[in-house]
Structure formats: structure tokens, C-alpha cells
């Protein structure tokens, strides 16, 4: 596990909003922006997204459909289908020996060499992720052979058999075609395939979406177990926040192409700092812990093509105030005393300095987004 670095106590407003990042990052996404459309009026699907994945960490990425979760995964691996265009930012990958490379600046050869070896992806379509005309053994082996030119087909297939065993599939299934496997098995094969070259980062884009809940649980447990055994880092993308609380170390919540909250999983769950996170947590029943009232989030996500200035969530937010329609909030450390210095939230309630700079007096911060660790414990005890 990573340890939080010393926070600089010289706390004027500018210093305070500087975020403290993980001390041993394996993947740093910095100010990544993605547009869809090549014409004069493209849609800004990702706007200056920054995210850091620590070594060995499971980072959950949650948000509603269309908020840019998958686009982030595709952009970070440069697999963005047309008309997607990366317009700015960096994706820094830190190798085991400490060398940093910017994935976005690699040439085609280096990029292909880096793929699967450094970062592997499991896509959401378990049904369509395998080539229907090749046996699965061949599909696992060809990835191995592409990166290890010296290896023979036989050795690659032996490695593939080991990988299948790793995910709980009998090795004789190597000779099966994808259509002979169930959806859950196919997704396991995809996970086995992703682990073929012992990658340091595994990006999972809704790996369990097409599966039933029992299979979902098995797959998630398997990923967690493999992670402890093999020590890779995971970016787990899903709209299912309850699943994330179970497996993620840290959760980043996305809304309208931006990350609006980034904190330890338990902190997000018990002490959300953004009104959207708070609302999201109240829109599904918790798997464990006390019962609580369920509420939906009124309205729907904004049209990214028509997004102006200000906070993108203001129209649906119960705590919006005047400044929200003019000032676009940036990720800052929340104002609540005693919070983890690595937490970040993009809400003006937590950035009173900016509101004051506009000549307005910030309103009192709502209790829903300012619960302290102490409050949460007391709250749980009462219920």
C-alpha cells in the first residue's frame, strides 16, 4: 500500500488546493482531454482529467452512462475509435525500474510493444471480445508470441494452459472455440489473456456487466484474489458503486467528462464530499451495513455538446448556490477537518476561497457532504 506523503502545511489557498498524489504511481493520467468529432464543433467528452494509479492499487472509476469512463480507458491506451481524438494531456507509465514513458508520445512500434506487456485491458463485451474463428488457445498464445519473439507456439500454448488454470478453467478448453464457452467462461478467458504477459496495470471496463450477479461476484472475487497473488494494479470501471466499495482501494467518481471526487473507497462510501457522490450512494441499497433511505438523482446528465461554464452538476444539485452557474469548480482538498490529504473534490462548497474571490460569501456547507469520520461512526451506531 502507498503511504500519503507529507502535506505542506504552509497553507495559503493556492498551496492548499495542490493535491497530494500517490508516492509510488504506476500510471499517471494528467489533464487528459478527448474530443469526439473532427469538425469545428467537437464534443469535449473528457475535460482535463487527471488520475493517479498507485502500484498495487485497485482504483474504481464510477459514474453514470455517458460520463466518459470508458473513453478514459480507451484514451489512456490509445485505442479510441474514430472520431475520438486526444486533444491534450499525458499518460505517464512508470515501469518497475522507475523509468517513465508517456504513452501518448510513443511511436507505433513502441506503442504496440508496450501494449499488453505494460497495460492490459478487459473489455465490457465478454461475448464479442474473442475472435469467433480461432481457438481460444491460439488467441492467448498469439499475444504472448507477439511480445516474446523467441517463444515457440508450443511453449506459448503451455503458458496459455497455465493461465486458464489460474482463472479456474480446465486447460483442455484451449482447443475450444469462443462459441462453445458460456459468457462467464469467456470473460475468464479474457482475464487469463490479459494476464498473459504479467502486466503491471489491468484496466477492466465493466468486466461484469453482461453477466448475472452470481457470476459477477465470482469474477470480482477472482480478480481480487489474482491481484493479491500477482500484484498488478487495477483500474476497475463500472457504474455499480456497491461493487466498487467491495473491491476498490480508492474510488474516482466521474461526472460529465470530469472527475469530481477522488478518495479512498471507505471515505467515499461513508463521507462523500461531492453532492453527486452523495446522491449516487443513496441511489442503490448497500450490500452491507445499516439500511438507509434510497433516493434517485433527479434530472439526467447534461448534454456534453451544450456544456457551458459553471458546475456541470448544478441543475441537479440540491445544494447549488449562485456561484455554481459561473465558476467551474476544480479538484481541491475538501474543507472538512481531519480528511485524508489525498482526497480531492470538485465542488465550490469545498473551495470557499474561489467564491470569496468572486466577491460572494460562500454558504454554510451542507451536512450531507461534510460528515467527519467521527460523525459517521456515531451515525452508524444510532441506526
Amino acid at each position, binding site marked *: 500500500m502507498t503511504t500519503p506523503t507529507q502535506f505542506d502545511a504552509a497553507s495559503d489557498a493556492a498551496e492548499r488546493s495542490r493535491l497530494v498524489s500517490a508516492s509510488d504511481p504506476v500510471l499517471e493520467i494528467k489533464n487528459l482531454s478527448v474530443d469526439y468529432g473532427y469538425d469545428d464543433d467537437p464534443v469535449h467528452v473528457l475535460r482535463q482529467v487527471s488520475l493517479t494509479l498507485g502500484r498495487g492499487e485497485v482504483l474504481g472509476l464510477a459514474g453514470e452512462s455517458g460520463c466518459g469512463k470508458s473513453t478514459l480507458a480507451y484514451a489512456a491506451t490509445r485505442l479510441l475509435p474514430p472520431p475520438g481524438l486526444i486533444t491534450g494531456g499525458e499518460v505517464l507509465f512508470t515501469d518497475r525500474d522507475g523509468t517513465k514513458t508517456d504513452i501518448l508520445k510513443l511511436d507505433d512500434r513502441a506503442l504496440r510493444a508496450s501494449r499488453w506487456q505494460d497495460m492490459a485491458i478487459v473489455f465490457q463485451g465478454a461475448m464479442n471480445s474473442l475472435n*469467433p474463428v*480461432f481457438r481460444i488457445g491460439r488467441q492467448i498464445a498469439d499475444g504472448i508470441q507477439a511480445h516474446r519473439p523467441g517463444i515457440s507456439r508450443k511453449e506459448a500454448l503451455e503458458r496459455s494452459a497455465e493461465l486458464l488454470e489460474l482463472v479456474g478453467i480446465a486447460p483442455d478448453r484451449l482447443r475450444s472455440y469462443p462459441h462453445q464457452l458460456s459468457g462467464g467462461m469467456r470473460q475468464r478467458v479474457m482475464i487469463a489473456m490479459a494476464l498473459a504477459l504479467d502486466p503491471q496495470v489491468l484496466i477492466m471496463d465493466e468486466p461484469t456487466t453482461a453477466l448475472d450477479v452470481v457470476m459477477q461476484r465470482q469474477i470480482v472475487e477472482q480478480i481480487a484474489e489474482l491481484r493479491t497473488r500477482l500484484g498488478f494494479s487495477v483500474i476497475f470501471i463500472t457504474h455499480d458503486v456497491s461493487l466498487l466499495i467491495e473491491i476498490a482501494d480508492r474510488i474516482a467518481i466521474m461526472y460529465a467528462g470530469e472527475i469530481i471526487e477522488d478518495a479512498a473507497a471507505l471515505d467515499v462510501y461513508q463521507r462523500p464530499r461531492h453532492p453527486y457522490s452523495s446522491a449516487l450512494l443513496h441511489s442503490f441499497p448497500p450490500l452491507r451495513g445499516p439500511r438507509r433511505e434510497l433516493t434517485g438523482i433527479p434530472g439526467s446528465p447534461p448534454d456534453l455538446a451544450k456544456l457551458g461554464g459553471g458546475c456541470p452538476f448544478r441543475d441537479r444539485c440540491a445544494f447549488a448556490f449562485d456561484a455554481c452557474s459561473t465558476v467551474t469548480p476544480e479538484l481541491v482538498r475538501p474543507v472538512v477537518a481531519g480528511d485524508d490529504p489525498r482526497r480531492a473534490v470538485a465542488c465550490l462548497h469545498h473551495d470557499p476561497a474561489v467564491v470569496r474571490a468572486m466577491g460572494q460569501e460562500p454558504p454554510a456547507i451542507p451536512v450531507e457532504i461534510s460528515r467527519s469520520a467521527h460523525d459517521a461512526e456515531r451515525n452508524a451506531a444510532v441506526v
Partner: protein
Amino acid sequence: MRFFLRRGLFYVITFWAAVTINFFIPRVMPGDPVRALIARNQGRIPSEAEASLRILFGLDKDATLWQQYLDYWALLFRGDLGISFTYFPTPVSDVIAQALPWTIGLVGIATILSFTIGTLLGTGIGWRRGTWADSLLPISTFFSAVPYFWLALIAISIFSVTLGWFPASGSYDRSLIPMWSWEFVGSVIYYGTLPALTVVISSISGWILGMRNMMVTVSSEDYVTVAQAKGLSERRVMLGYAARNAILPQVSSFALSLGFIVGGTLVMEIVFSYQGIGYLLFTAVAAKDYPLMQGIFLVITVAVLIANIVADIAYGILDPRTRQEG
């Protein structure tokens, strides 16, 4: 294996049905072939010969239709298709055997060329869609939209009449004796180039378009993205993942077009006076030569059936999902 057995049984039944229909159709057509033959010879055959001609053609016996049908099958298995009226007294099987290699050779090679070039072009265009290569599509579609006989006539007028590069008609230099010599084979290739070229040009757009569209569809499949994510070389992704799946519908239409080689090139053979099976059918129909027509229809039917079998086998090999495994 069971898959091929079942398909085999299916083809036997189809073959039986085709031959049966082939047998009955001429018998329900009006007209008397013997009278037609005498009339065409304009008095060179005396009318007394009518009775002997009937015996020769086997029209004298007052056999029931059922008996005729059984006889037809018996003769068929011995390879006896009767005697041609037009090329009297050559047996139909010999007439067809002479014409068939020309058609299969010329149109077969042209079709294979068209398929290969078209599919390769389609793969490239589909993989890099939105580049200048897309402009090849309307050009090739234009040539296939032009009526074939017109395209062929224009080709003759430009390349044979005006430029004099290729002969305008025929299948080889008539001063040569047909044999397996370089000179004769060279002549056949020289005479066949222009007809083959027109066939390729008029048919290639279908292959390009079909492959291009399948490539565009398949390229957005998840498994192609996965192949990219695996870091395979672009060539491997394009050929092994995208084209490998995109070619499946192409293969079945290719096999079917092989079946139509035998019967489907009537216009080309007429325009170029090429001595193939299409030209033969044309003469047979014009001369009411029933045995020859029946023989040609049979050959066409068998060719389409064989092409279907080839398509089935090819598809079974290429796409594991179509195999029924026990």
C-alpha cells in the same frame, strides 16, 4: 463428419430433383424436333427419312413417360446424353466436352482473378476507410453498372479495332493446331486476355464493395480492438482478425459465382464469338436442339451443385460456428 454426411444426403436429393425437372421440362415444350430438323435442312433430307430419324432419336417407341424417365437415368449413368441435332451426328457429351474447358478456363480464371483482386482491394479500402482509396468505389461501381455487352463492345472497338492490341474474336489463332505447345497456349492466353479483362472489370466492384463493407463492420467488433490492445502488429490485426472474419460472406458468394461460371457468361461468349458453353447454349436454343439444351442444363445444374458443396466445405473449414460438433 456427421455434418458432411448430412450435407451429402442433402446434395443427392437436390441432384435427383434437378435432373428430374431437367427431364420433364423439354417434354412439356411444344414442337416436334424431327420435323424441325427436316425443315432446317431444306429438302436435303428426304421426307421418307422421317421414320428412320425417329428411330435414331429414340422417338419411335411408344414408351410411357415413366419408362422414358427410367431410361433417361440409365443412359445418364453411362454418360450418354443423346445425339445433338445441330452437330448431327455428334453425341451431346462430346459437343459439351469440347466447349466446357474453354468456358471454365477463361471465365474461371477471370472469376478467380476478380475475386482475389477485389477482396484484397476491399480489405485495404475497408481498413483505411475515409482515405483517398474510397474513391475507387464509385469508379468500379460505374463499370459494373454499365451493361456488359456495351462495355465489351467498347473494349473491342478501343483495344482491337483502334489500337489493334488484341484480337476482336475467337479463342486462338486458327492457323495453329490445338496441342500442348507454348505457341498454342500463348495464343489462347493472347485471345483470352480481352474477354477476361472485361469480365474482371465488370464484376470486380461487387467483390470490392462486399469486402469493404464487411471490413468496416468487422473493424468495430470488440475482438479487433482486443487484438489491437494485445499489441499485435497491424498486419496481423488486419488479416488475422478483421479480414479473416470479413471474408466469410465473400467465400460463400465466391463459391456460388463459381457455379454460374458455366452458365452465366452467355453475353461475353456471344460478343467475343468465344467457343464456350454459353455460346453453345445460344446455338442450341436457336436451333431447337433439345438433347444439347438438356445436356447443357444438366452440366450447369451439376456445376452449381458442386459449387454449393465447395461453399459448404469452405465455410465449414473457415467458420467453426457452422460446424455441428457431436
